[in-house]
């Protein structure tokens, strides 16, 4: 076969020479013939004429000789394609169902394939990304959280920068929101604060101007430099090619544009529209942030020097971080660690990756079920075409030819399906991307997932695979068609189905049932998990609470005393009719990004092993009442807990459990290792114990939290909470006016109800659940069609047998029960296999589940029951038909 292809190829490549040689050969023939004829006595001219006559027209001979090589071969392919198309057109119902079945599977697979590609395989858009690493600190407490990676404080980062030798470059970065422009023209934009090496490290060069100068790294306040992102440059500055050197007001500060970044680059946070020097944090956050050794807020990325192994870098980092304690005011207690992680490892958040993988597997299963169903359809159709096939055999078509024809048909179907699938994928992909929040999923931008050449290639490969898979069964079967089938089926065997065929189809249906059950179990578990998630005690009442943020910078309030200005904002908000309570805090529940610290229950800080990582929140007294946080013991803050008064804190139940297990924390004192209690004493008294509030995702177990009175420490809280009488969204405009009465330049942003935040926090799970339900539904539907098909087929094939049974006195009811029983048996075997598979797949799923065991008996039972019921129900029609067989008719039919 290969040899033949090779010879054909060679002939084709040398086809001009082939023609010449053939012509020469024919000329030689004519001459030899003519000379022989002359020998036998003919004249020269007559001999030539005769010779030509014998040979026929040279062009025709050459045409035929050429045909031997190519034309016939291609002609065959074309003919077979035509035959397949005609045959598919004759059975439009079959064709549409088959193409849709495959299309759904292939389309879903293509859409998820492009997501997977973006999530896992597309190279990161940075220079030599394999050498890039992220560096983290590991606090000594350990204990409470197993995988406790911390960012860096600025002083520790400086130490790292000065001492580490494993790297070609080290850069610090953080993400923040900045006001660009002034007054009504101001926009609030996402910015990255980065050190000067950041861009060079990633291998990103500005398209205009330059990156930050090295000088900014040692200039607190950032030296007034600013770099614009491409989108911002286009949108706000009209792609001004002379922008470099111009001044832009950022957070009230005049900054000079030094460069513009290339299109598409949005930093490692995937969301930045502009960049300011890392050192400008002292300007935009608060002035002492660069001096706080215990305030961990900075991410670090580095490029490994050539020939430095990651393990060597890790060893070096641990030495450096072991001295972190030196940065604290108190003597070091406990040894900090460090962690070097390949940047590529953090390319995608594990949760998102698992979701995509699970969905990919699910859609692959749907495709498999679809294929199994198609095999069944093909078999049934092939049975209907036995006569056609037999006639073809009888007139000389080889059985290989028949197989080829079946294969061509199923391939044509598969490509139809692939076309449908690609269209579907185009429609489905944007919907799928709804589960991908902008940024925050890692280093890859899932929104960049597209149906590109690779995906089209994958789709086509899938189509070929599916086509061949589908063709194998029926093609093998077609070899058994005997010529006698054409002549009218005299023999008994040709009318009644050979049992092996039905067995084969039953196996297929059982297989479908198993896969459908697997899908349904997965969907059921996710539903269950979602239900649990909706019932989670968030620790607050989201109903009728509005959350929003006001510019965090004290600079905006530079003209006044920031604490008083914020108190004024709260007073103004209180005057809005319909407002029940106003609270303020450093971060909102379910929002992530809260501050953290390390505390100890021992005010003397003598026992390092008792450290506890804790979330730190600066809140006004109204915070607890506005959110409806549960007070367990002690009291809330009140207006008397302010600057100069006794230092007090409120902790949550998890913190109490970790700090003083089994005891009431009220009246106890704790000490903090960070500057949050700066100004003398680092200890505070606990006056209240409150319920846990979920500050991160709603599925994330709450950690230890500490609340300090915002009025006591002049710290810039930025988030406000408004408990309202009615719909909180009606108050958005009054809120804006109230804030602007204090300062017309203050932009408010991130205005959303807490209920909406709760919905957003679970959107990923809801979407995954929804998709898995859709896939499971498709799977069950296809399996039902499969059961129906095979039972209908079996009943039709056994009409004669059923007729005889009825004639001999069998009750129709019993026949019906027999058919239903067979369906139930098939589905039952499939379900058993499916259950076993579900048990095997628990590890894949359990990471997506929230407080649901992947072997949840209720879900397993319910899913099995549904699948069995659907299977038996879809066998009902064939069963009824079996019972209604007319014995007289069937016997006469023979």
């Amino acid at each position, binding site marked *: 076969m290969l040899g033949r292809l090779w010879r054909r190829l060679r002939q084709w490549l040398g086809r001009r020479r082939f023609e010449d040689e053939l012509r*020469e*050969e024919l000329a030689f*023939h004519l001459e030899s013939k003519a000379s022989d004829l002359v020998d036998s006595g003919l004249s020269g001219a007559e001999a030539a004429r005769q010779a030509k006559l014998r040979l*026929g027209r040279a062009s025709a001979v050459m045409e*035929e000789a050429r045909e*031997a*090589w190519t034309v016939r071969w291609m002609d065959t392919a074309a003919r077979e394609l035509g035959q397949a198309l005609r045959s598919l057109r004759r059975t439009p119902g079959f064709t549409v169902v088959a193409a849709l079945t495959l299309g759904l599977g292939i389309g879903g697979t293509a859409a998820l394939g492009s997501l997977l590609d973006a999530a896992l395989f597309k190279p990161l858009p940075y220079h030599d990304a394999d050498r890039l690493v992220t560096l983290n600190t590991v606090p000594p407490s350990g204990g409470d959280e197993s995988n406790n990676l911390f960012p860096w404080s600025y002083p520790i980062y400086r130490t790292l920068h000065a001492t580490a030798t494993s790297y070609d470059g080290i850069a610090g970065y953080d993400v923040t929101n900045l006001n660009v422009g002034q007054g009504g023209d101001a926009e609030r934009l996402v910015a990255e604060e980065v050190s000067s090496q950041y861009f060079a490290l990633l291998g990103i060069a500005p398209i205009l101007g330059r990156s930050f100068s090295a000088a900014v790294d040692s200039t607190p306040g950032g030296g007034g430099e600013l770099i614009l992102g491409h989108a911002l440059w286009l949108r706000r500055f009209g792609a001004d090619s002379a922008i470099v050197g111009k001044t832009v007001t950022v957070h009230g500060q005049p900054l000079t544009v030094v460069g513009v970044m290339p299109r598409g680059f949005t930093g490692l946070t995937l969301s930045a529209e502009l960049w300011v020097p890392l050192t400008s944090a002292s300007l935009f956050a608060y002035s002492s942030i660069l001096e706080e050794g215990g305030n961990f807020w900075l991410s670090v990325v580095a490029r490994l020097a050539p020939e430095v192994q990651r393990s060597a870098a890790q060893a070096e980092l641990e030495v450096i971080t072991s001295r972190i304690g030196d940065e604290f005011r108190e003597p070091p207690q406990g040894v900090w660690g460090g962690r070097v992680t390949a940047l590529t490892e953090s390319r995608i958040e594990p949760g998102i990756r698992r979701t995509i993988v699970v969905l990919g597997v699910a859609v692959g299963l749907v495709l498999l079920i679809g294929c199994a169903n198609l095999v069944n359809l093909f078999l049934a159709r092939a049975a209907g075409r036995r006569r056609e096939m037999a006639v073809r055999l009888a007139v000389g078509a080889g059985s290989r030819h028949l197989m080829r024809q079946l294969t061509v048909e199923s391939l044509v179907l598969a490509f139809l399906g692939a076309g449908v699938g690609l269209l579907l994928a185009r429609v489905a992909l944007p919907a799928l991307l709804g589960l991908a929040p902008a940024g925050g999923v890692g280093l890859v931008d899932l929104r960049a997932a597209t149906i590109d050449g690779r995906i089209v290639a994958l789709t086509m490969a899938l189509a070929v695979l599916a086509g061949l898979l589908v063709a194998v069964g029926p093609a093998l079967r077609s070899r058994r068609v005997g010529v006698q089938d054409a002549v009218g089926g005299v023999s008994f065997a040709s009318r009644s189905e050979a049992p092996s065929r039905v067995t084969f189809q039953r196996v297929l249906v059982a297989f479908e049932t198993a896969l459908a059950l697997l899908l349904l179990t997965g969907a059921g578990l996710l539903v269950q998990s979602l239900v649990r998630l909706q019932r989670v005690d968030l620790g607050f009442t989201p109903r009728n609470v509005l959350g929003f943020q006001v510019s965090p910078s004290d600079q905006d309030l530079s003209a006044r005393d920031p604490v008083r200005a914020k108190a004024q904002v709260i007073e103004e908000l209180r005057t809005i009719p319909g407002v029940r309570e106003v609270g303020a805090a450093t971060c909102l529940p379910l929002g992530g990004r809260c501050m953290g610290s390390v505390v100890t229950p021992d005010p003397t800080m003598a026992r390092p092993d008792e450290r506890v990582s804790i979330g730190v929140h600066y809140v006004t007294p109204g915070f607890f009442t506005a959110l409806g946080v549960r007070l367990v013991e002690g009291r809330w803050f009140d207006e008397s807990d302010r600057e100069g008064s006794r230092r007090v804190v409120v902790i949550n139940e998890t913190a109490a459990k970790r700090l003083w297990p089994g005891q009431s924390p009220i009246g106890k004192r704790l000490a903090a290792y960070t500057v949050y209690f700066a100004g003398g004493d680092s200890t505070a008294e606990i006056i209240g114990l409150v319920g846990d509030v979920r500050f991160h995702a709603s599925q994330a177990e709450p950690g230890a939290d500490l609340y300090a009175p915002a009025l006591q420490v002049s710290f810039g809280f930025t988030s406000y909470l408004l408990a309202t009488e009615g719909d909180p969204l009606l108050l958005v405009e009054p809120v804006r006016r109230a804030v602007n009465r204090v300062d017309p330049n203050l932009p408010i942003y991130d205005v959303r109800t807490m209920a909406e935040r709760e919905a957003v926090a679970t959107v990923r799970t809801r979407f995954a659940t929804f998709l898995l339900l859709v896939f499971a539904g498709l799977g069950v539907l296809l399996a039902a069609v499969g059961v129906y098909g095979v039972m209908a087929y079996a009943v039709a094939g056994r009409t004669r047998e059923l007729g005889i049974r009825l004639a001999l006195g069998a009750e129709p009811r019993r026949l019906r029960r027999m058919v239903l029983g067979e369906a139930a048996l098939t589905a039952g075997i499939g379900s058993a296999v499916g259950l076993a598979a579900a048990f095997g797949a628990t590890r894949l799923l359990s990471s997506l589940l929230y407080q649901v065991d992947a072997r949840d008996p209720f879900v397993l039972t319910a899913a099995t029951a549904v699948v069995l019921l659907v299977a038996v129900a879809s066998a009902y029609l064939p069963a009824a038909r079996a019972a209604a067989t007319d014995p007289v008719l069937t016997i006469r039919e023979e």
Partner: protein
Amino acid sequence: MSARNDLLPGTLELLILRTLDEGSLHGYGIAQHIQRVSAEVLKVEEGSLYPALQRLAVKGWVASEWRTTPTNRRARYYTLTREGRKQLRAELAGFDRIIGGIQRVLSGQEG
């Protein structure tokens, strides 16, 4: 198989293979040989000869090369390949069976 051929389908190829079994020959030589050996009973349709040779070449049963004839002309000589020889054996056996069958039918024998 061409309708111009008076022979049974496939017979021309078989005859070519058998002829080449004796040694390499050019197209014209093959036609002459068949005609001569069959005592003029089988006349090769010359127009069919060359396409048939090409079909055999596609299948890899014959190979060809240009050589000089005894009369000092350039001609394409065909040679049986190893596969061609194998095919020839198989076809000869099959052909014998068919001929035997035909003969039995024609002579009216039973079983």
